[in-house]
């Protein structure tokens, strides 16, 4: 069993590798398609002649295209994706210094939306056709059409400006140098509005998937058996039906990471959250091409990896999946 499983994981990982390399090649093509000298896309556009000469040699820009591609891939394998001139540091250093706030925002909203979505979906499925079910259906429908950036603006207007319950922008109150518990509370207060903004779309998705999954499971024979054993409604739902109904939710969450990144970027701009989205926005304004390409790579790699993790997770959760076969 375990050797089969590890072989499966290895095989899936090896399938992800060509995708990663293809993304790198797309990046390389983009660098050469862009107007102007490609050196500016690798080294920024504010350097002096000696600096450009050094970067030209490093990326082999005087050599034929194929050699350049090989050099680009070799550099990428060593984590060297160019130099951000706006920050005067290597691209990957700049990016990783901005990962924690985005991770906090994405992680909390994913957790909250998944938990709440499963609850709402279960309530909805149990009372299918009722008032609560119909209200939830209308709510999810609107959530699908709701752009994160507009929802964020509405929340700021309502809860920050009019009601004054939450701070308007940022991650911490810069006027107070709080530490320990006070710092935690401060970040939490700043986190609630952007987290809600980002969570809504995924909440709608999870609610809808849980509901339809449960509706299907509740008509299965094993559910009738569970009732016949004398289990209560709650026991049947939580111990039996829900476990099977949640499989599509796992897939959807795994495939949602790219969308989540997009949402996070837009949310961060509205709330001046100091993460990757803000960095991306600034790099489009300052034309910091190396940084832009680095961010694109990071998101693409995360999407590929999260698909891989989802597939592997799936085999753990669903014993019916035969990983030997594929």
């Amino acid at each position: 069993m375990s050797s089969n499983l590890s072989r499966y994981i290895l095989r899936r990982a090896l399938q992800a590798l060509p995708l990663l390399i293809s993304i790198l090649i797309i990046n390389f093509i983009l660098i050469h398609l862009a107007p102007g000298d490609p050196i500016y896309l690798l080294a920024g556009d504010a350097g002096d002649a000696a600096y450009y000469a050094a970067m030209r040699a490093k990326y082999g820009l005087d050599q034929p295209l194929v050699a350049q591609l090989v050099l680009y891939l070799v550099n990428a394998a060593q984590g060297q994706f160019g130099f951000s001139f706006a920050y005067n540091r290597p691209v990957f250093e700049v990016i990783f210094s901005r990962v924690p706030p985005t991770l906090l925002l994405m992680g909390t909203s994913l957790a909250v939306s998944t938990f709440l979505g499963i609850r709402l979906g279960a309530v909805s499925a149990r009372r299918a056709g009722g008032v609560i079910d119909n209200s939830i259906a209308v709510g999810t429908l609107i959530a699908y059409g709701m752009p994160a950036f507009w929802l964020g603006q509405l929340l700021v207007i309502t809860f920050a400006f009019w009601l004054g319950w939450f701070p308007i922008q940022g991650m911490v109150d810069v006027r107070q140098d709080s530490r320990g518990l006070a710092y935690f509370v401060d970040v939490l207060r700043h986190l609630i509005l952007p987290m809600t903004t980002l969570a809504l779309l995924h909440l709608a998705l999870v609610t809808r998937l849980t509901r339809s999954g449960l509706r299907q499971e509740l008509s299965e024979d094993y559910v009738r058996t569970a009732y016949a054993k004398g289990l209560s409604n709650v026991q049947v739902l939580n111990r039996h039906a829900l476990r099977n109904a949640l499989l599509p939710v796992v897939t959807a969450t795994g495939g949602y990471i790219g969308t989540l990144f997009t949402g996070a970027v837009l949310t961060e701009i509205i709330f001046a959250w100091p993460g990757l989205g803000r960095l991306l926005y600034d790099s489009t304004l300052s034309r910091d091409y190396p940084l832009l390409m680095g961010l694109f790579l990071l998101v693409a790699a995360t999407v590929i990896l999260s698909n891989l993790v989802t597939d592997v997770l799936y085999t753990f959760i669903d014993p019916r999946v035969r990983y030997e076969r594929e």
Partner: protein
Amino acid sequence: MSQAVIATRTFSPTGDFKSSSSRVPRGWTRFRQQRAAIVGLALALLIAGGAIFAGQIAPGNPFARVGAALQPPLSTRWLGTDDLGRDLFSELVHGARVSLFVGLAVALTSTGIGIVVGGLAGFFGGWIDDGLMRLTELFQVVPRFFLAIIITTFFGGSIFNIVLLLGLTFWPSTARLLRAQVLSLRAREFVMAARSVGLGELAILARHVLPNAMPVIIVNAALQIGSAILVEAALSFFGLGDRTQVSWGYMLNNAQPFIARAWWMSFFPGLALVLTVVSVNLVGDGLNESLNPRHD
């Protein structure tokens, strides 16, 4: 992406299809019976009408200054004015053109590409199928919004660029759906019958397999319209859209510095966006129920 997940889930694989001429009126009868779909269709037609007759409804250049800046709704103008004293109602009506055009054009482009890729992969199988599906997987993992940001930063965010780019990134779901359909249709008796009378493979694909796979494709295209409208708005909100034309994303971008003082600058374009996407999705869901019924 999320919408595609919903859509694929509800497609029924088959049942023997009748000829397409009898299916359309039957589909309309089923469509008419769904209240939500009819409401969606009415709303979508209303918005489309506003976009088409924008010049008559709100004459003049929407970029023109008409009065004092930041006037609230119902004071001098229906929906008030923005920070440059422009009429928000006029901007809103003209902005509908960009959203609807981008939504429709992207859905058409991506459906065209998806039909070619998915149809060829499903019908011919073998190495053609393998190659095309690897390509599809690659396009599926490319983060659309981030690629769009790079391309529009490099080449500018003209409407043409945005449509082309989104069309080139939306097709994988179409291709996969069509491939699955073709795989199941290809084994049917009517395809064998066509082959036995000497019809060529491409002719069979075009005349017999594709028409029967169309309902699934139409629904998918309808749901893509809403997604494409949202991505275009997000790009314009990011300041990377077409700055020569008013669009709802552009208006929301303008509103961002003024949300404390002028809620209406943000409220109305966002509301228009939500109503448009919801109405298009309602029509898509309605088409799904009537063209791909689960209990036929």
